[in-house]
């Protein structure tokens, strides 16, 4: 029988994480012998819609995509459904009322990631001297799903401890440069006060760490650094003792995706929600974990 | 003008200053129905400013404008038109990207079912231009046509606006006698119909041919208002230039005192063979000797400017060769031409000459600097010296050498551009309509200057829509017709009458 054709629409290549995600999917497709139709949307929803339309026109067997944003997919997914092409969501959900528009959603839960970061800090706070613990937050791109959710999840948990205070929160656009720039500003205004830095992704954290060092402080000691994603760079930072913890958000969805895609194509029923197994990596285990990081 | 007739338009105590420059101070003007009123004055006297004030382009600092006795204050050309004042400004102010027809009718389109009726518009435009004996494709974009044609279009636009007052600021500066005659015929007709016409020119002949009344401005001050019939040319000139200078003799015989060129014209500076360009100029031969003035005569559109542009490499010739001082030159760009010792003062100062925001000094030294190259900068002192000298020699009226050329009067801009090329002091200088919009006195001075340069060995290719000028200055001249060369003549072989015949085509 002919190889299964999978149309995959990626958000873009805005971060290392995204690139790893893309790579994983391409490799997995090769291994699983799936012919992959890959389309990059350059961070634009309309491009993703166009891509999906073209997949439909090409009559692929299965469509998968990681939505740029949750909302606004009903129409095009409706067309897919009408064309009897099953749709799999990866990494981000869509918020359409009609759940029948897609068969399943593989991926991590941004809110949960935020919570995990929060929980780690909650634990850590116990061991810290009494008194207020001032947190500065580096948000992702304003309005982007991970930024909103990771903020929410984190806030939700730390609410448990009144001493945990977010004194500053500014967007660092998920990039090192911005992360560093913003952190510099924070350090100038309330340098000594800051006890904890919570960054919505590793890149910003790494940038911020540089800023902290240049301010003559010790990242990881004078200022605790918490971040999300778990890319290689983060692990190097942890091994150097500059980053305290990174909450994993695994981009390696490829194998799972292929497996599910095959099942779906074969007409088997799959669970509506498939969460990826992800860990929280504190600095202590970084060195041990480092060798077996793929991204 | 019978007494008791109320003036259509009356200006009282108009003053206008630009920063510190007093362009107009306490000027008055009366414009009666059914008269052609000529505004005279040297370059920078304030003529155009006065016109811009009364058509709402500038707001006067002081003074009032009465239209039919009612004080008016037009805020823009639009309002002025609304008041029945139709104007042709000094520089051609049309949109080169639009079709000829549209330039005539824009703002006042003939409509059908609320939509612009292009057919009707083009027909009417055709008719209007035909009245002026101009037969061109009115659907073609204006940029297709040379300045003179554009000027005619501007005029017919103004004429087509049914107005009570018609204002023409130097409409004839780039026109040939033929066109001028046509224009005057039309003006006379309008005068019959009782239109009040304000006319600006630097040509005395034209002034006396058409005008009933003359108002003279000097340095922004009203010199006086006279009936044309009661003012002799000499008085007029004196009033324009002011008593400070001695009366000039025989102004209308510019260059008459030039004795036949005795310098040896043996050395051929430039030799063109079969120089031509498809559709614009039939191949022709040219030999220019050192130290001579070589004139080009022809009717509007006869191809004079084309010859100049080809020689200068501004347009690429698609046939023929050019030899300069005996060796073949490929003039692919003006740069090459300049390197080969040619200079070209274009007829279209607004589009191809002035660099408006730059200062007078910068405009003057530009070509010289370009030839010197990027690195060898002309020292500031020298630049200022040059600028000041030419301002003195050509009598350029400007507050100082750092004033942007944009704020100079038309004629003064023209002089500045002339200065640019004189400063380069090329072996051969092409002057296309160099005296456009330049006042009588300056004109003579410039002509003398030009001739003096020749006597010093410079070769000059002289183009002017004033055939008399060409006749007087040039040692030899080439007559062009329909963009073909038709006969070369030496000084004296043609006089004012025969040349017209030749040009018109009754030769051989």
């Amino acid at each position, binding site marked *: 029988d002919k190889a299964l054709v999978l149309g995959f629409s990626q958000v873009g290549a805005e971060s290392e994480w995204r690139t790893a995600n893309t790579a994983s999917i391409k490799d997995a497709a090769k291994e699983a012998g799936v012919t992959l139709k890959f389309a990059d949307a350059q961070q*634009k*929803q309309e491009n993703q819609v166009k891509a999906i339309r073209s997949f439909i026109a090409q009559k692929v067997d299965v469509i998968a995509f990681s939505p740029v*944003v949750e909302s*606004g997919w009903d129409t095009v997914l409706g067309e897919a459904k009408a064309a009897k092409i099953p749709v799999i969501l990866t990494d981000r959900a869509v918020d359409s009322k009609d759940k029948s528009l897609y068969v399943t959603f593989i991926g991590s839960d941004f809110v949960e990631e935020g919570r995990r970061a929060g929980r780690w800090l909650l634990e850590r706070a116990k061991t810290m001297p009494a008194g207020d613990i001032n947190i500065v937050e580096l948000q992702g791109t304003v309005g982007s799903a991970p930024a909103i959710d990771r903020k929410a999840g984190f806030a939700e948990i730390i609410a448990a401890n009144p001493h945990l205070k977010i004194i500053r929160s500014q967007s660092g656009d998920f990039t090192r440069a911005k992360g560093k720039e913003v952190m510099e500003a924070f350090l100038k205004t309330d340098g000594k006060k800051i006890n904890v830095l919570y960054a919505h992704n590793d890149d910003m954290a790494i940038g911020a760490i540089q800023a902290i060092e240049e301010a003559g402080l010790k990242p990881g000691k004078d200022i605790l650094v918490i971040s999300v994603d778990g890319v290689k760079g983060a692990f190097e930072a942890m091994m150097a003792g500059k980053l305290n913890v990174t909450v994993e958000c695994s981009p390696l969805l490829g194998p799972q995706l292929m497996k599910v895609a095959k099942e779906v194509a074969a007409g088997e029923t799959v669970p509506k929600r498939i969460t990826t197994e992800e860990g929280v990596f504190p600095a202590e285990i970084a060195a041990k974990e480092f060798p077996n990081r793929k991204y | 003008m019978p007494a008791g007739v109320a003036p259509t338009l009356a200006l009282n105590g108009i003053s206008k200053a630009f920063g510190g420059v007093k362009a107009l101070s306490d000027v008055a003007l009366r414009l009666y129905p059914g008269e052609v009123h000529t505004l005279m004055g040297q370059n920078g006297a304030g003529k155009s400013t006065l016109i811009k004030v009364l058509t709402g382009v500038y707001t006067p600092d002081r003074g009032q404008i009465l239209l039919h006795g009612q004080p008016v204050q037009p805020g823009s*050309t639009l309002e002025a038109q609304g008041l029945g004042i139709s104007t042709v400004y000094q520089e051609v102010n*049309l*949109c080169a990207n639009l079709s000829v027809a549209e330039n005539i009718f824009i703002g006042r389109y003939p409509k059908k079912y609320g939509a612009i009726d292009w057919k009707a518009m083009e027909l009417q435009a055709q008719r209007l231009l035909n009245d002026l004996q101009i037969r061109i494709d009115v659907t073609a974009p204006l940029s297709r046509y040379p300045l003179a044609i554009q000027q005619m279009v501007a005029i017919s636009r103004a004429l087509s606006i049914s107005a009570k007052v018609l204002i023409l600021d130097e409409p004839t500066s780039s026109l040939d006698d033929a066109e001028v005659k046509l224009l005057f015929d039309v003006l006379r007709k309008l005068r019959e119909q009782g239109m009040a016409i304000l006319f600006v020119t630097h040509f005395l002949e034209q002034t006396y041919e058409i005008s009933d009344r003359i108002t003279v401005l000097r340095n922004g001050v009203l010199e006086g208002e006279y009936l044309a019939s009661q003012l002799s040319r000499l008085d007029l000139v004196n009033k324009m230039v002011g008593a400070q200078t001695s009366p000039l003799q025989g102004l209308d015989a510019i260059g008459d005192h030039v004795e036949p060129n005795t310098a040896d014209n043996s050395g051929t500076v430039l030799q063109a063979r079969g120089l031509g360009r498809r559709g614009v100029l039939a191949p022709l031969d040219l030999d220019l000797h050192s130290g001579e003035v070589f004139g080009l005569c022809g009717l509007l559109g006869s191809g004079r400017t084309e010859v100049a542009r080809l020689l200068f490499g501004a347009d*690429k010739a698609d046939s023929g060769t050019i030899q300069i001082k005996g060796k073949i030159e490929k003039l692919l*760009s003006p740069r090459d031409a300049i390197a080969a010792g040619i200079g070209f003062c274009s007829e279209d100062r607004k589009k191809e000459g002035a660099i408006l925001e730059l200062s007078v000094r910068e405009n003057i030294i530009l070509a010289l600097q370009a030839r010197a190259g990027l690195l060898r900068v002309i020292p500031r002192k020298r630049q200022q010296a040059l600028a000041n000298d030419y301002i003195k020699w050509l009598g350029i009226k400007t507050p100082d050498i750092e004033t942007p050329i944009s704020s100079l009067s038309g004629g003064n801009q023209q002089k500045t551009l002339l200065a640019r090329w004189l400063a380069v002091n090329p072996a051969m200088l092409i002057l296309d309509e160099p005296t456009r919009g330049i006042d009588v006195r300056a004109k003579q001075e410039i002509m003398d200057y030009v001739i003096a340069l020749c006597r010093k060995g410079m070769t000059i290719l002289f183009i002017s829509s004033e055939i008399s000028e060409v006749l007087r200055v040039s040692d030899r001249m080439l007559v062009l017709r329909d963009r073909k060369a038709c006969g070369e003549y030496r000084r004296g072989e043609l006089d004012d009458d025969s040349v017209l015949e030749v040009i018109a085509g009754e030769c051989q």
Partner: protein
Amino acid sequence: MMKILRSLPESSYFTSMVTVALLFVMFGLGSISYTGFFSLQVVLNLLIDNAFLLVIAIGMTFVILSGGIDLSVGSVLALTTMISAYMLQSWHWPPLLVIACVLLIGASFGAAMGALIHFFKLQAFIVTLAGMFLARGLCYLISINSITIDQPLYVALSQGRIGIFGAFVSPSVLIAMMMLALAIYLAHYTRFGRAVYAIGGNEQSALLMGLPVGRTKVMVYAFSGFCAALAGVLFSFYMLSGYGLHAQGTELDAIAAVVIGGTLLTGGYGYVAGTLTGVLILGLIQTLIAFDGTLSSWWTKIVIGVLLFVFCMAQRLMSLGASRSGTATPAVD
């Protein structure tokens, strides 16, 4: 240069012609290389997916023709989707009223910028850039989340299908096409349109010829704002959501479309119809890439670049050949 100017209108006309030709060539190549490419639906998808871009580009065409530029359109689009979504979902206003409101808002936003540009002699670029920041910012003030629209009429229009020979288009396409027709009429058969060309050709002359320069300029930006808002409405049909990050960088796509369509950025020369081809070209490039399906993210960018280049080259050389001495940038030696 007189020569260059002389040849400009032709070159602008030929450019448009050439563009159309190249469009077909590209489509032909696509059809040969990819299965399922040569189908009516693919063509119609071009229209469906780019309806909003077309509308924006139409507004932009007028601005550029007048010698200006409007960078705010993308953000105004986003703002429109946001406001519509908010009015519909939170205030439950009737859809038609909402549409009327946002169109009005868009137009006034544009008019305001136009006024600043004209009366204070500010530069279009900088004013509209600030406008761009402002509109985006306002989106976030409404909400940083995306708001889903489930208003029946919107849903209906979003999923509405108008069959054409077995294929279909969305209602948005019809609206866009009507807008195009209207724009062409405006540009070529009304005082306003011609004034726009005149101002683009030479603003001072336009003034001295007694054209209402000020009013026209303000109206141009108002029109552009209106188009952006209308595009926003189409976009909210298209996406059924309001979102502050919608249509980022669309202003650039629009400008590109207009310029590729043969309009000169310096103003005065160009055709509204050309803009349609410009939009289709951009859309086609996207589609080709999607159909290819082997390009990595960066190759996608590179290929877009290359296609743009090849296209502009062809366009340029062909129109050069068409009118011998033409050149689009006056400064060329």
